[in-house]
């Protein structure tokens, strides 16, 4: 008997899971709130650790969409539980009966303007990591004008109780280094600083990325969190931090500041949780049944998780979780039958 699986979120997790679920012989129904599939990934240019092309990855993910029903520009209006079924109504008026639901809702980018002291949206030359990727893709951003001195601020809205995000966003350290190297290639004469609290280079080849950034690209590292940014008379940015290794406050004048906005829980999480009764952790991400052994299962029967919905993750981790979730869903159906 064919079973319907509703997948909420058409990012890498949702797309990968949809194909796997189809391969298990079930019917995936994928919905995505944006107008195209791919999630945040679709807005990126290249990926760490080795500058892999996003385009290629997206092509592989979307190459084989046969048998997958998907709707873009579509939101969830309601989800109701009927005995062993979930009835979901979408914003496009369609309603489906699903035997299982997979939450692949991902994350929301931390709104960098919330850290007003960094001046995003106030000063002319402050951008975010996402803005920079957009620049790499299009070559256009009025805020980037032949910069001589560039700064990357790690942990913007991550590891910050005041921003409401205690967690580490996991991917920003490596992203910052990747972007710093790319900027150095574009502007070989520029001096580039990374302001970090701890460099978390945990994955395979990440340390090589770090070494390359130092040796090949000459990126400079300052261990200290930027505390405030101001604009001088010429419109250049004056960045203040403490160089904690030297033990003295430092001030650097810059032409471009890139804020590494972190991963916040998806803003729709509370709404979806209230419809289905799944648990939300203190940090705002969905809470799986157990963080080690059942990391893709929820506390509600028939509801599963994949990807950054349960906390910041890298692309390979997300894809693996999507596959694990597909397997768990198939297993769940077999047990039911």
């Amino acid at each position, binding site marked *: 008997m064919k079973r319907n699986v509703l997948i909420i979120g058409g990012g890498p997790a949702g797309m990968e899971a949809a194909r796997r679920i189809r391969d298990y012989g079930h019917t995936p129904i994928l919905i995505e709130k944006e107008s195209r599939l791919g999630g945040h990934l679709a807005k990126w240019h290249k990926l760490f650790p080795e500058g892999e092309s996003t385009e290629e990855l997206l092509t592989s993910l979307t190459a084989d969409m046969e048998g997958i029903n998907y709707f873009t520009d579509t939101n969830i209006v309601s989800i109701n539980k009927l005995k062993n079924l979930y009835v979901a109504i979408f914003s496009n008026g369609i309603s489906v009966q699903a035997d299982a639901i997979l939450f692949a809702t991902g994350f929301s980018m931390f709104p960098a303007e919330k850290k007003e002291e960094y001046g995003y949206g106030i000063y002319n030359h402050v951008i975010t990591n996402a803005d920079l990727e957009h620049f790499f893709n299009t070559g256009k951003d009025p805020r980037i004008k032949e910069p001589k001195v560039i700064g990357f601020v790690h942990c913007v809205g991550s590891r*910050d109780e005041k921003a409401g995000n205690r967690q580490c966003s996991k991917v920003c350290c490596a992203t910052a280094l990747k972007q710093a190297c790319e900027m150095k290639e574009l502007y070989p004469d520029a001096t580039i600083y990374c302001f970090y609290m701890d460099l978390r280079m945990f994955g395979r080849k990440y340390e090589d990325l770090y070494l390359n950034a130092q040796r090949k690209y000459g990126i400079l590292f300052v261990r200290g969190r930027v505390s405030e940014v101001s604009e001088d008379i010429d419109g250049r940015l004056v960045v203040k931090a403490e160089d*904690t290794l030297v033990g003295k406050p430092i001030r650097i004048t810059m032409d471009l500041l890139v804020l590494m906005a972190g991963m916040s829980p998806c803003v729709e999480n509370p709404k979806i949780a209230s419809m289905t009764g799944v648990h939300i952790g203190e940090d705002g991400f969905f809470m799986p049944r157990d963080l080690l052994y059942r990391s893709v299962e929820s506390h509600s029967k028939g509801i599963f998780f994949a990807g950054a919905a349960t906390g910041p993750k890298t692309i390979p981790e997300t894809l693996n979780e999507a596959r694990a979730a597909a397997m768990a869903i198939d297993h769940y159906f077999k047990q039911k039958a």
Partner: protein
Amino acid sequence: MIDFGYSLTPSSTIEIDDADMSLFDELCAVEPDAIKCMSCGSCAASCTAGVFTDLNLRKVLLGLQRGCEEDVLPQLKSCMLCGKCHIVCPRGINTRHLILSICKIYNI
């Protein structure tokens, strides 16, 4: 230790074994935030008094944790208690109470 009748040049090593941490424990009892610091340096960078003096709250706290209070405590004298460090601290440490508590508990 055997007394050889002479001593070696004082070492610059911090002898953690010999550090008396009782005052620091007392501090943690009244302000548990004293051990929450992750040394990001935000406080020192934004410090109003730090522009004019060597005041560096991160260093003070670290110094106390290593039992080197004599080296760091005089810095606190220039603190204006303005509370900027409290606003910027990503760990939400109650820095003003921390400073006032240090001033009550420690002696220089």
